[in-house]
């Protein structure tokens, strides 16, 4: 069974983001880019499914500029078999990106197309479901674990306070979240092997964005900490605030 994983190159979550002079994009100077962490879960899911099946190929697909080749090679180093780069300049418009990807995926024989549940740069969670819609395939979102059988995939979805188990008929689309699929480390042999794996480049379909970022702003400075009380007596109040106000527990 073949699986295609759509991946995006995003700023490292450790990077301190600066807004560019234009005010509606980030300053890319000095920013380190990585594969979006949720895409790594999706890739790991694909690799595990194919490894368990004992056959099949994992293709990674990305829409992006030249630098995206580096991200694709890092996916190849992790074990993907081949990579396809749709060369172009993605915008923040998830619908435009979905159309670009879908036009490539239409001719694809993959039984499963996987995405990360979201890209950590724009956090929109749109592209996976939109691609499913464009391809006319069922879609399971926020999948924490999956089992692929004959013509169907069973997916464990993370929902508020629990799990939901769904079955989707293949071919299908799924978006993957944190759960069973802790990404592996790239082995050094994998990095060497990646250089010999195919990475095809194509011009991406041109889709005019209908969604334009007007401006970006920094988050407000974090409010000062609050001292609830001192000693063991303060515990009850602290727990109450954590539960009711911060909703952290």
């Amino acid at each position, binding site marked *: 069974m073949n699986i295609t994983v759509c991946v995006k190159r995003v700023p490292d979550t*450790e990077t301190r983001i600066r807004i560019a002079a234009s005010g509606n994009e980030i300053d890319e100077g000095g920013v*380190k880019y990585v594969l979006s962490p949720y895409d790594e879960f999706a890739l790991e899911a694909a690799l595990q499914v194919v490894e368990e099946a004992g056959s099949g190929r994992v293709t990674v697909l990305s829409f992006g500029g030249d630098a995206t080749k*580096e991200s694709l*090679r*890092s996916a190849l*180093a992790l074990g993907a078999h081949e990579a396809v780069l749709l060369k172009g300049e993605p915008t923040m418009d998830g619908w435009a990106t979905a159309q670009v990807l879908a036009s490539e995926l239409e001719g694809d024989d993959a039984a499963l197309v996987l995405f990360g549940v979201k890209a950590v740069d724009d956090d929109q969670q749109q592209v996976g479901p939109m691609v499913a819609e464009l391809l006319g395939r069922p879609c399971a979102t926020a999948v924490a674990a999956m089992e692929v059988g004959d013509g169907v995939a069973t997916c464990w979805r993370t929902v508020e306070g629990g799990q939901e188990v769904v079955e989707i008929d293949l071919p299908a689309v799924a978006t993957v979240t944190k759960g069973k699929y802790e990404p592996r*480390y*790239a*082995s*050094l*042999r*994998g*990095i*060497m092997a*990646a*250089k010999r794996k195919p990475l095809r480049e194509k011009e991406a379909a041109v889709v005019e964005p209908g969604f334009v970022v007007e401006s970006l702003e920094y988050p407000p400075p974090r409010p000062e900490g609050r001292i609830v009380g001192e000693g063991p007596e303060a515990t009850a109040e602290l727990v109450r605030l954590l539960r009711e106000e911060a909703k952290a527990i």
Partner: protein
Amino acid sequence: MASRFAGIDFYDVDSLLAEEERMVRDAIREWVEDRVMPIIGHAYVERRFPKELVPEIGELGMLGANLPEEYGCAGLGNVSYGLIMQELERGDSGLRSFASVQGALVMYPIHAFGSEEHRRHWLPKLASGEKIGCFGLTEPDYGSNPAGMITTARETADGGWVLNGTKMWITNGSMADVAVVWAQTRAPGDAKGIRGFVVPTDTPGFSARDQKGKLSLLASDTSELVLQDVRLPASALMPGSTGMRSPLMCLTQARYGISWGAVGAAMACFCEAVDYAGERVMFDGPIAGKQIQQVRIADMLTSITQGQLLCLRLGRLKDEGKMTPQQVSLAKRANVDMACNIAREARRLLGANGILAEYSSMRHMANLESVYTYEGTHDIHSLVLGQTITGIGAF
């Protein structure tokens, strides 16, 4: 909570690295962050080499990473290899020592001087970490002058060998499955008579004893090897070993990696110092805002940047086949000295907390004293350079 380690790159050295080299560095960096940092302080205090990490180190391909793929190695270039050492030693010099010995002092000689049978038998298992190796050169009375060694290898009538002698300060010694042992096959002092043997450690007459009482490299196995009438077949001799030159070639490989490793240890201390200085408030402000501490960290950044460029250039020369042992001496000497100074200054910046195992600086400081001494002491490398400059040997 300190943020994830991001390395030091004040001079955009990253742009001098190939994509593959950056990927290698990042992969090892991530692994060290996740797997080594949470346990290393405890392992150190418990005086324990974290052997449980060896299978992963092997699986990721860190052992003998610059040796060819046909023997199960990663087949990386020398800069990638150096970056692995940098990242490992960012974790702990003991871990880097393990990898240096296995890769540069055991796998390298087996590859360079061993028979094809040695290579086929040992290299894949050493690369995967299934087997562990050690390198026995130093003796109790022959440290800086190993050519004077008194461990003997006597050829027997049937063409086999009998080894007798004692090797000291042997990294991985007690846990090794195989030892590369250097012994004199001729009269004492005949440098050309020194040959290398591949000795399985379960050979009768071979024993190893942990070196007690260390105050440095506590998360590393350092042992004494005793060879008492160790009988070996003719095939144990590494046919390509040709005198003292051969172990020195191994040391050049290991020292090359050490010059990178030292940069990693220094980076770890620098990052710890900067983080701490930003958080520690004394006299109404973070100590990072005090001029003395700023001088400290400015000096650290300067020497780390110098060290980084030095070993990168050395790595490029090595890839081009132009690196000389004297250049390696310069880098080992300069970078380890640099790292020793930085570790000590970082420890001081941390005040009382700096003496705790919870922080890394004092562990690095203590470790680096061994690194300063092994693989040719700082002084011996001074003499190598002195001889190179003046033409006069002063040993």
